[in-house]
């Protein structure tokens, strides 16, 4: 069956490193007159120091507040006026900034990125910091504190990684630390991490490779390199948790929901690739084990297209996480027991047909992810920054398709075991009135 989906595209790209150390990746795609500009800085919440959690993300906000030749508010305005879209995101291992533009505005995108890479400090002031601190605190309230199950992500980080490990805290950080952030911290963070030799620039789309490299040289070439960077906090960690960790949270939630997280070998490892296949066999799509058993046959949980996923972290160990929301009236204990049984059953028998289905889905998901110039630019930078070579993008899918049933079994056996899991359960809080009545 898979042979029919066999024409896997290879993405042509050219890499070039400027004298100041900036890695430049260019890939032509002339299908539409659009171009993606994408920069990854090799700094994320993993690089934060104690008492300054959430800082990498707060800093990302400051990067949109103007720079040497860009007035406050002008960054968004210039990209929008060019007909472009833009944003930036922060995660544990990196911070990215990107814009997708009609291709004749490529120079504008590069100029804007270069201006804030080289000249942010000229615009950074206390007003910007105070304003964006409040914005970020409201982002945290909107996405975490005022959301049902909103604390799940932060708790999974805390439970699955020991204190002292840089993934012990999540990217959003704490209100206390956000309040404590000072202008001097922002300046120092910028001077420490934001430099051409700590960044990777991808330009993908309707461009001529030589012209794109010349433009990168023109706008970024004069930014001084930094030369050296501090050693990031150690990510050393045991490959497995070594015990089961359980926590139950009573909260304002409509139905019980359990998150089961397992320590897993990092992005780029053979185990990670095997887990990509395992997660789809188990919990990806309507034909997955968990969907069939827990959603269709036993009707214990809410439908979901992606019940299990593995995060792409590189710092010692990453996490595979199952998300199980109970159907109305189903006890969470019953759902959890049925879930563990299904995981164990995977070890007993694995039909080759299930691998065919999983690999076909992984193939089309990959093609979907890389179909847009912005998705491709971001993925090139992911492989360049986290694994050291953007060309590895072309190996990623073949590696996953080469995973055997035995490797899936082995990975599940090693990863999804009781002594390597965190079980975080949310249950509806009993109100005072209900308690009084009971």
């Amino acid at each position, binding site marked *: *069956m898979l042979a*029919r989906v066999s024409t896997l*595209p290879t993405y042509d790209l050219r890499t070039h490193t400027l004298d100041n150390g900036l890695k430049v990746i260019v890939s032509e795609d002339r*299908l539409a*007159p659009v171009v993606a500009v994408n920069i990854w800085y090799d700094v994320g919440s993993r690089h934060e120091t104690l008492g300054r959690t959430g800082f990498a993300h707060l800093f990302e906000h400051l990067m949109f507040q103007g720079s*040497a030749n860009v007035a406050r*508010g002008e960054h*968004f*305005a210039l990209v929008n*006026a*060019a*007909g472009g879209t833009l944003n930036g995101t922060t995660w544990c291992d990196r911070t990215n900034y990107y814009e997708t533009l*009609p291709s*004749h*505005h490529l*120079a*504008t995108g590069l*100029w804007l990125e*270069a201006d804030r890479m*080289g000249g942010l400090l000229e615009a950074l002031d206390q007003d910007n910091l*105070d*304003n964006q601190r*409040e*914005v970020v605190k*409201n982002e945290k*309230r*909107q996405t975490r*504190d*005022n*959301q*049902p199950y909103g604390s799940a992500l932060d708790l999974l980080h805390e439970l699955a990684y020991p204190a002292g490990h840089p993934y012990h805290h999540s990217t959003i950080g704490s209100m206390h630390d956000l309040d404590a952030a000072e202008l001097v911290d922002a300046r120092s963070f910028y001077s420490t991490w934001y430099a051409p030799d700590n960044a990777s620039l991808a330009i993908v789309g*309707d461009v001529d490779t030589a012209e794109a490299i010349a433009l990168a040289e*023109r*706008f970024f070439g*004069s930014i001084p390199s930094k030369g050296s960077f501090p050693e990031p906090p150690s990510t050393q960690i045991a490959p497995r948790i070594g015990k089961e960790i359980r926590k139950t949270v009573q909260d*304002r*939630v*409509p*139905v019980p929901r359990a998150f089961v997280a397992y320590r897993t070998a990092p992005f780029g490892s053979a185990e990670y690739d095997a887990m990509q296949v395992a997660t789809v066999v188990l919990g990806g799509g*309507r*034909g997955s084990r968990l*969907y*069939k058993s827990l959603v269709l046959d036993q009707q214990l949980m*809410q*439908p979901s297209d992606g019940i299990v996923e593995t995060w792409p972290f590189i710092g010692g160990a990453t996490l595979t996480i199952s998300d199980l*929301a109970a*159907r*109305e009236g189903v006890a969470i204990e019953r759902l959890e027991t049925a879930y563990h049984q299904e995981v164990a059953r995977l070890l007993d028998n694995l039909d080759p*047909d299930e691998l065919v*289905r999983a690999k*076909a*889905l992984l*193939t*089309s*998901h990959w*093609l*979907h992810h890389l*179909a*847009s*110039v912005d998705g491709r630019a971001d993925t090139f930078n992911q492989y360049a920054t986290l694994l050291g070579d953007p060309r590895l993008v072309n190996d990623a899918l073949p590696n996953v398709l080469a995973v055997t049933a035995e490797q899936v079994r082995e990975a599940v056996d090693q990863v999804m075991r009781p002594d390597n899991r965190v079980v975080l359960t949310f249950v509806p809080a009993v109100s005072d009135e209900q308690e009084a009545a009971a």
Partner: protein
Amino acid sequence: MTARPEPGAPRPWTFPTFDRRLVAGGRMLTAHLPGRALAVTSLVVDAGAVLEPSAQAGVSEIVARAMSEGAAGRDSYEFGVAGERIGATWRSSTDWDSLRVGFEVPAGELAAATQLLADAARSAEFADDVLERVLDERIDEISLDRSQPAVLASEALGSALFQAESRYAKPDGGDPETLEALQHADIRRYRDARLRRDAATLVVVGDLDGVDVDALGRTVFEGWDGDGSAASTPVVQPRDAGRRVVVVDRPGSVQSVVMMGHDGPARAVDDYVAMTTLALVLGGMFSSRLNMKLREEKGYAYGAFGGFDTRKHGGVFAARAAVQSEVTVPALEDMLAEIERVHRDGVTSEELEQARSYRAGVFPVNFAGVGSVAAGLGDVIVHGFEDDHFDALRAKILDVTLDEVNATASTRLRPDDLVTVVVGDASGFAKELDALGLGPVEIITDEQ
């Protein structure tokens, strides 16, 4: 630092040429986009939520879901596997004006995926046990959705703006009350009435080199019953005009979701371009007035937005933000002030230029992929647009004048009719609300 660069010469862009054809009595819209690895095959059906009887709100969404839950001898699981084995991803949705179902699939599997789509559309069984489960899942899903304050706010605004019997008074996906009352016979009857050849159009977008497009059409349409009754006339009456406030009290909330809105015009109005350009300046871009005021100046919110939701038979104007509880009242004052200011004074020529160049410029970015082009063709079907619609729209955007935009600011925005919704901890702001002049205040307690 190098000087600010000038743009190069734009490469010409037009919306992808598409082809309309009639195959085996059924309508098709196809667009050939060379070089794309994935393709879309989908049915756009004239079965939007607006056509539902208000008492059966949500039935269309149930029909869309039940279509993939067993058909042509395959049960739900087997149907899922059949698509996923060829890398096909099923997507179904119902909005106010259409039901859309289909696959994104590697281009080489278009024929197989279209066969599955035909099975879902024509031979889905809608068995009792399946309908029971799909209904229960949907009701549970709504209860999850309603635990999010932003969802509660949108629902409260809809029911405050439209008369109780208006379909727009309830969410497009229905609510637990209507779904609980829904009989299996109602669902099958709705399917039989709306899911038929003369209400459906097959959309195929992707690299169609070597694809027998007519054969795809025959797969779906040949022998499909084309008869059916005309759709009923939608009931969408707004309530009486005038300001009022609805508070959904959620004690302990650390934020308030605030919305201000009124009913608005349908998609087909003559001043659509001017009106939506105005909305971009007020609340449709990062640099819009609402976001600059509430986020970038005050730091009250992560973001603030506003605009017109233009449906086929009516619409809504709404502004929204999730603000820190302590500043609920000042945030409402700012939001109202911005709406009143643009209504009274209009936009500046600089703002117009910014909105115009963004909106016209972003077409190539927005329509670069097969999914967005297929969605665009869906809109062509729903609204009966001409072949040159998107290019003509882009030209109109570039031509819209300050006078036209400011005329719609004074007519399409109606500050005196704004309904305000606040979902949050009422103890922190309820007393001050009366003084704002936003109209009579009604407080509802969130039951969760």
